[in-house]
């Protein structure tokens, strides 16, 4: 069975769409921005320096994230004389914990999320992010945490089937099965689902945190018999595409593909969505030490982040990148100022303190 994190889903999504075109796009985009030639010339000089610097092992979920990360992050870092080695085996919380506990840490940087901060926080297995090296001004400040720092942005959004719902629905309509009969889908994880249930119930955006879990559960329970729960991103895509659901909450990357696949039959809105960061975490006692922090700092550059947006749909984590995003990519960029303004930003502190417990309770609620 596949794991269900956003980072991994990006990879699956790219696989389903065919890997080669995105790689070509990447290189084409890189050339268009005039970065690749510069990187190539610098890479020669950098190689000698790299001998002295430690290798940084960066773990993502493999597949097509490999060439995408290669272009967006590895080559620019090599141009500065560093070296990132990609490992596509996927850094699940359980695996990081095993590694640190057995004192056999081979990973330096892991592509993770806010829920992992909560899951791993109490076990004290993550290094503090060194903000004397990583530049706090190059990320959205609310997504720079003690044990992790944002690497890219993604959103959980509401999508609907225009053949059954003619006008753009609101979150309140999602919970109104009289107005729009039919099944809905949510993610099989409390993350983002609670926020959207509360917004639908009339909680103002700025009063969302701390989440009123009881109220959110009560709201979800009102339509429980009409709900399906997806675990992998591809599930969410097929449930809407095949007409099994009339509305659904899913990741914006999947929603983008649905619009293409269905010729616009499925539409989505960033309005009242939840803007979430993907997060770099560094396992405690990582082999490359501080070099990992220098690699993270290098990956903050806007150019690489825009390449990632073009290849995988992940929004830049560096606010400075937004001005450079090409117009055709801006509408689908979850972290563009226009799109960010209509969304709520996830509060990681709340997740660190509450997610493990709430997630279990959510599973108990939805399991019949």
């Amino acid at each position, binding site marked *: *069975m596949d*794991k269900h994190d956003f980072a991994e889903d990006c990879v699956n999504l790219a696989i389903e769409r065919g890997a080669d075109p995105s790689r070509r796009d990447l290189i084409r985009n890189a050339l268009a921005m005039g970065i690749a030639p510069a990187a190539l010339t610098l890479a020669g000089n950098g190689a000698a320096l790299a001998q002295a610097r430690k290798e940084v092992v960066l773990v993502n979920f493999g597949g097509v994230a490999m060439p995408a990360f290669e272009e967006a992050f590895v080559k620019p870092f090599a141009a500065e004389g560093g070296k990132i080695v990609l490992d596509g085996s996927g850094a*699940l*919380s*359980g*695996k990081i*914990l095993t590694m640190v506990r057995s004192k056999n840490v081979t990973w330096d940087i892991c592509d993770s999320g806010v829920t992992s901060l909560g*899951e*791993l926080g109490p*076990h004290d297995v993550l290094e503090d992010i060194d903000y004397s090296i990583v530049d706090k001004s190059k990320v959205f400040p609310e997504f720079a945490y003690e044990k992790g720092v944002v690497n890219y942005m993604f959103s959980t959004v509401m999508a609907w089937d225009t053949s059954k719902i003619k006008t753009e629905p609101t979150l309140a309509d999602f919970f109104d099965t009289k107005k729009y009969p039919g099944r809905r889908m949510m993610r*099989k994880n409390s993350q983002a689902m609670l926020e959207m249930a509360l917004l639908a119930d009339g909680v103002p955006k700025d009063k969302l945190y701390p989440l009123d879990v009881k109220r959110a559960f009560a709201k979800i329970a009102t339509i429980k018999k009409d*709900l*399906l*729960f*997806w*675990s992998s991103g591809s599930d969410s895509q097929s449930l809407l595409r*095949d*007409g*099994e659901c009339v509305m659904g909450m899913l990741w914006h990357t999947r929603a983008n593909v649905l619009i293409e696949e269905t010729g616009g039959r499925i539409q989505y809105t960033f309005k009242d969505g939840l803007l979430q960061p993907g997060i770099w975490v560094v396992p405690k006692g990582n082999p490359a030490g501080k070099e990992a922090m220098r690699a993270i700092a290098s990956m903050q550059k806007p150019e690489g982040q825009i390449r990632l947006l073009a290849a995988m749909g992940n929004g830049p984590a560096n606010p400075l990148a937004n001005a450079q995003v090409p117009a055709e990519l801006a509408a689908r960029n979850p972290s563009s100022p226009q799109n960010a303004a209509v969304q709520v930003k996830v509060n990681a502190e709340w997740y660190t303190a509450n997610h*493990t417990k709430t*997630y*279990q*309770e959510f*599973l*108990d609620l*939805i*399991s*019949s």
Partner: protein
Amino acid sequence: MSVHASARERRAGLSLLAGTHTRYWLLIAPALFMLCVFYIYPIGRVLWMSVTVPAPGLGNYELLATSASIHKMLLTTARITMVTTVVTLILAYILAYTLVHSSPRTQRWMFLGILIPLWISVLVRAFAWFVLLRRDGLINSVLMSSGIIDTPLSLIWNETGVMIGMIHYMLPLGVLPIYANMRDIDQRCIAAARGLGAKRFEAFRRVFLPLSLPGVVGAGILVFIFSLGFFVTPALLGGGKTLMIAEYIKVQILEVVRWGLGTMLAATLLLLIGGLLAALSRLVNLRKLFGAG
């Protein structure tokens, strides 16, 4: 003289026997070593973790009695496992009965039908059910267009869907032990019962059925144990709403990292299955059932 000779022969025979034993042990030593290192030791660690993480003691096992979440999950697991086992056994019995009483040519075709699904990945089969059972899937569209129903039946994304998928998976595992047992029943017993004046059904009920019960029990154990730890089908066909023990353990180990709880449930499952097998071994000869001896 002859007494001495036979004693000597016996001694020689004994030492030869001891030698054979040592050689046998040496032969299986590598396998035994592998089993200990790669199987017994990790399982030992799982058991150990269940009483030491997060704190030493039986705190994790206490949750079995106190946690409503675990109760609910165990009930779901028990309910689905029981229904799956019972329905599978009934269907498997009918199939095996037909199989035994068919011509060799029909038997070959029937076996093909039973065995081919066994070789197809459980994932592929779950997706095939998805195509058949969903809202505008084959079954619903046939029923709707023929006017039998006017709203689509909820055949998937619930426990019904999970059970359909699981029973389909378990059916070959149920048919094969029952068939093996029925094949060995002496048909003359039934003929004798009929000759003594029993009606067809009575001959079946009082002669054939009792003779075939060991096969049913064996199939029951096999299906029950497989169903208890089933993961893929409930996760795919349950619409995210059917949480059984295997998925629950996965969430604990990989996602919320509550290893003590996860290992406790794994240990409980292990002990439960061990206990079931021990109890059943008193009722039936398990070695014979699974083909040994």
